[in-house]
């Protein structure tokens, strides 16, 4: 388990040694900040609704961009040969990299705490949904990180990893909004698959075990897929 910590530390600092973290965080803040405050004053409501509506789509773009290099770069450079011949297991590698990506998501969210603080100065802010929203955002970020990591384990090409990750995350985000052409009997299943649906539940301030279970299972499926992809490669 200690190896997970070492790999996590190395991967997390790699984000900040290279310009990746700074660029991604800056773009994330720019997009969410702009879209949130552009319409904020029109609604004249002191809540973070607009921010949380936006978050899944932005995450679907940003997170695959941060995870795309995690494994595919190792395969491309060949450094996986160095890593995997040290006393580490696939599990250590995948968990370490996954946690690094989740930590980056948290680092990305921390500056946005300025939004609720700003809003609370202007009106009566209900902190329940805000806290729920942040918790949900971390779960959502973790689920997308797992998906991105899986995409990264599939190929040695970072661009392909990004596109696969983006496609899956985007589908998960929008699937519950494209239900009008589906038969009635399948609606429930597809609505349940939508990441946005579960995220918005948590963002309302209701923490339901079904929503948590959904994100945990997405994480598990993604990480297990990454594990199988690595196993298959060796």
């Amino acid at each position, binding site marked *: 388990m200690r190896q997970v910590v070492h790999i996590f530390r*190395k991967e997390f600092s*790699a984000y900040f040694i290279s310009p990746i973290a700074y660029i991604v965080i800056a773009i994330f803040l720019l997009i969410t900040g702009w879209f949130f405050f552009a319409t904020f004053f029109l609604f004249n409501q002191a809540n973070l609704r607009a921010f949380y509506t936006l978050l899944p789509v932005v995450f679907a773009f940003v997170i695959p961009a941060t995870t795309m290099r995690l494994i595919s770069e190792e395969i491309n*450079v060949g*450094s996986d040969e160095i890593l995997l*011949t040290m*006393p580490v297991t696939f599990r250590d590698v995948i968990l370490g990299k996954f946690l690094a990506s989740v930590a980056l998501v948290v680092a990305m969210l921390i500056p946005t705490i300025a939004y609720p603080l700003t809003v609370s100065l202007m009106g009566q802010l209900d902190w329940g949904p805000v806290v729920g929203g942040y918790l949900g955002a971390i779960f959502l970020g973790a689920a997308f990180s797992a998906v991105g990591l899986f995409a990264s384990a599939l190929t040695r090409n970072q661009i392909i990893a990004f596109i696969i990750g983006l496609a899956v995350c985007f589908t998960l985000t929008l699937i519950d909004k494209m239900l009008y052409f589906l038969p009635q009997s399948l609606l429930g299943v597809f609505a349940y698959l939508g990441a946005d649906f579960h995220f918005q539940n948590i963002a309302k301030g209701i923490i339901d075990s079904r929503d948590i279970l959904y994100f945990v299972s997405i994480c598990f499926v993604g990480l297990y897929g990454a594990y199988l992809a690595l196993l298959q490669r060796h």
Partner: protein
Amino acid sequence: MIQVENLTKYYHTLCAVDQINFDIQKGEILGLLGPNGAGKTTTLRMLTGYVQPSSGNIHVKGLSVDTHILEIKKMLGYLPESAPLYHDMLVYDYLNYVAAIREIRGDQKLARIRRLADLCGINEVMHQPIGELSKGYKQRVGLAHAMMNDPEVLVLDEPTSGLDPNQIVEIRKIIKEIGKEKTIILSTHILSEAEATCDRIVIISQGKIVADGSSESLKRSTGGKNIMYLSLQNADFAPLQESLAEINGIENVSRISETDSVLNVRLAYQSTDDLRPDVYRKIKQTDWILLDFHQETQSLENIFRELTKES
């Protein structure tokens, strides 16, 4: 120390390594030789747990790679071909990371990194990104990486490829130095290197072992054909041939050239005894003048070429 048993690896339908067997003793420097694509790297990768064998097994100190790979990885140090390291890390950070994964802690860690930096001569690049290093330095950082845990077995895949002659000499010196107490397996396709550094040579061709032994024993066992060259002044070929044929063991006397009064002759014999004294005695009996007299043993290059020829 290490037993390789019936080791086989298929990549899809391509057989990269085909039922190879060999043992490595403690403290031995073993050279794995072979043409490109012979299966050297695949063999080393199976030994280090990077790829899994299709069948067969490897035991390191009695532990099987199948079931105890983590324990084996702890005993091994591995330098993959062309040292694929993390390009954006600083050398020091990288070695620090490796030390952490190798579970070297605290004061010991710094001392170990210092010692390796001295041994591998990387002190002056410790604070440079690995991606900016020359190939020679990268290789040395890779070597420091491989030796971080003071491994009992050091596995080096083409440690000198792409280095300049000075660097090659230095890396060989380091290998010799470490080899005094460690078991080393290195792969190479440079024959002089194997001859210079290894106690034992295993030649692989098309996934099979075609020769195994010290470089001397390889030379002796495969033909052991010796060839002598003579240059004589004022000599005639016919009487020369006649007198040399009397020596026991001489197989063939042939004329290479005859210019003015100088006769160049080639003698071939297949014998473990040295026939040079006999030949010299014969020449001494005549009034011919001996201008040149030398012998060639079949070189490792020839043996290698013969053994690894495409069939």
